[in-house]
């Protein structure tokens, strides 16, 4: 048990280290040195040299990577060369905005998706099940940024029900929430489909098992069988999916944040890519990758806690 947890943690740490090395190598080994690109064509050689030294680019590559990894381990992601502020602080300021968006999106998607999946498993092969099935596939297929654009167009520009841009006034909960409605619609919609399909499939599997047949044989009411015995087990795979989804939602959050001009880590990466601010790009991609890796790990831990069979294979 404890061994599984440790091994899983070890794997996650290794993955993050390899990922950091890959990113670092990618940014620093390609032709065109970051310092001259950042300074533009009119920079003098002296200016470039100063910036190179400040960014630590004058040292051998391996030393750069190792010292970067060491700094990261101590929570230092370098300094933003434009504003002179620590990158870690810039990134961490944006993380809560994105996390709130992702969690709210996940929350409403799960609240819609779980009943929808259970419902279509119970009414298996009826017309209702078919409609839910097509609906699930359709929402999975539609690109989230198109959902974002269309909901912006319809609900914010045309109907004017919700605000179009920003994250709302700080401290004003109602304003914060109304600003979250459309972005979380865009980020969460396809997950309603994923979750509904997964819950339906695992529900059907559970309903065929012996303990459910026994419960039926004992004459328990159908509602007790479904809610107390079947759904509880059928939700297990959903937990894994939710863990994975956090990482994938980080990707869709980029679009939602840009379309609705919300602050967040996606917007930060986008803005720093446009200005070629490598240290911030690096730091924010790193933080979001770590978020992804560790949320997957936690969901694996929870699944292992709940289902001992999984601990065997890593």
């Amino acid at each position: 048990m404890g061994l599984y947890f440790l091994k899983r943690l070890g794997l996650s740490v290794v993955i993050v280290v390899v990922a950091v090395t890959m990113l670092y190598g990618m940014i620093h080994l390609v032709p065109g040195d970051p310092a001259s690109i950042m300074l533009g064509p009119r920079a003098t050689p002296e200016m470039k040299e100063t910036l190179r030294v400040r960014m630590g680019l004058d040292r051998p590559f391996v030393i750069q990577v190792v010292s970067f990894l060491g700094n990261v381990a101590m929570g230092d992601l370098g300094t933003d060369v434009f504003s002179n502020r620590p990158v870690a602080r810039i990134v961490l300021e944006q993380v809560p905005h994105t996390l709130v968006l992702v969690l709210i999106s996940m929350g409403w998607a799960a609240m819609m998706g779980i009943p929808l999946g259970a419902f279509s498993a119970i009414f298996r092969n009826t017309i209702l099940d078919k409609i839910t099935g097509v609906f699930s596939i359709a929402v999975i297929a539609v690109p989230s940024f198109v959902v974002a654009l269309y909901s912006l167009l319809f609900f914010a520009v045309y109907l004017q029900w919700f605000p179009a841009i920003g994250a709302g006034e700080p401290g004003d909960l109602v304003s914060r929430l109304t600003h979250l409605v459309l972005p979380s619609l865009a980020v969460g919609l396809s997950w309603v489909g994923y979750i509904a399909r997964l819950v339906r499939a695992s529900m059907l599997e559970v309903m065929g098992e012996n303990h459910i047949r026994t419960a039926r044989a004992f004459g328990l009411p159908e509602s007790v069988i479904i809610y107390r015995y079947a759904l509880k087990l059928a939700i297990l795979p959903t937990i894994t999916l939710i863990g994975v989804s956090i990482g994938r939602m980080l990707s869709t959050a980029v679009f939602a944040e840009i379309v609705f001009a919300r602050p967040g880590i996606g917007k930060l990466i986008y803005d720093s890519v446009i200005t070629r601010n490598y240290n911030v790009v690096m730091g924010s991609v790193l933080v979001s990758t770590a978020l992804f890796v560790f949320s997957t790990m936690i969901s694996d831990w929870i699944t292992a806690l709940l289902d001992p069979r999984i601990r065997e294979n890593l």
Partner: protein
Amino acid sequence: MSSGNRQTGKWASVVYSLRLLVRDPMGLAGLILVTLMVGTAVFAPYLAPRDPFALDVMNRLAPPSQDHLMGTDQMGRDTFSRVVMGARIALKVALTAISLTLLGGLVLGLAAGYGPKWLDNFLLLVFDTLRSFPTIMFALAVVAVVGPSLNTVILVIVVTTVPVYGRIIRTQTQAIRYNEFIQAERAMGAGIFRILGVHIMPNIIGPLLIVASMDIPVVVTIEAGLSFLGLGVRPPTPSWGSILNDGYSFIRNTPWIVIAGGVPLILTTLGFTFLGESLRDIFDPKLRKDI
């Protein structure tokens, strides 16, 4: 004679599968949408009523009319013609990226599944790492380094999806590498490339093609998404994503550009997904359980 029989047998099963596909409403809808999309892409130059690059500054941001079915954009270019030509870009990126991914996945997956244990472990670590980047953020980082272009988009898609294919191929290869017919081949002195190419590959390629066809909408979405962010194809190339980007800037007063860019994208992703789902149910009902 025997080959003739086999031929008719093959045809009969293709016709039978097509009949099953058409009888499934979802499959039929998918087939129609995909045919429309591919047809539009192939015959785009003949279907586009105007030159998608021709500027007409006097008529900029004109609303839909008989002259311009979907209005014009901020440079007076005909939106409908751009949407039609956009189908080409979408299909081109999808086919190129998916073929390259399949190729890369096959090479790495076979190496991991059939090669020595250390290679397997190393490749698995690489796969897991590449999969741990959130796709769009990784794409943004790559664009920051090599600059936006159609090839960058393809590169990003290939790098982020190869691990998925590699893992599937590795598992399948491991499942059959100790089968008796492989052992027999080895005993008869067959080389590693003959075993991999002639005996293992045909056994794993089928399910893989279904997975690949279901990835087309994903790839189309990534291309459009990056182009929407202005980090994909370069202007003035008409991509649905860049049309959406143009429309987004003028969303308050000229909503038709955003609508025109989004509808074909939605129809294409829906079409390929419906078709893929339906095909998978027909050819491989076992795959159905996992999403």
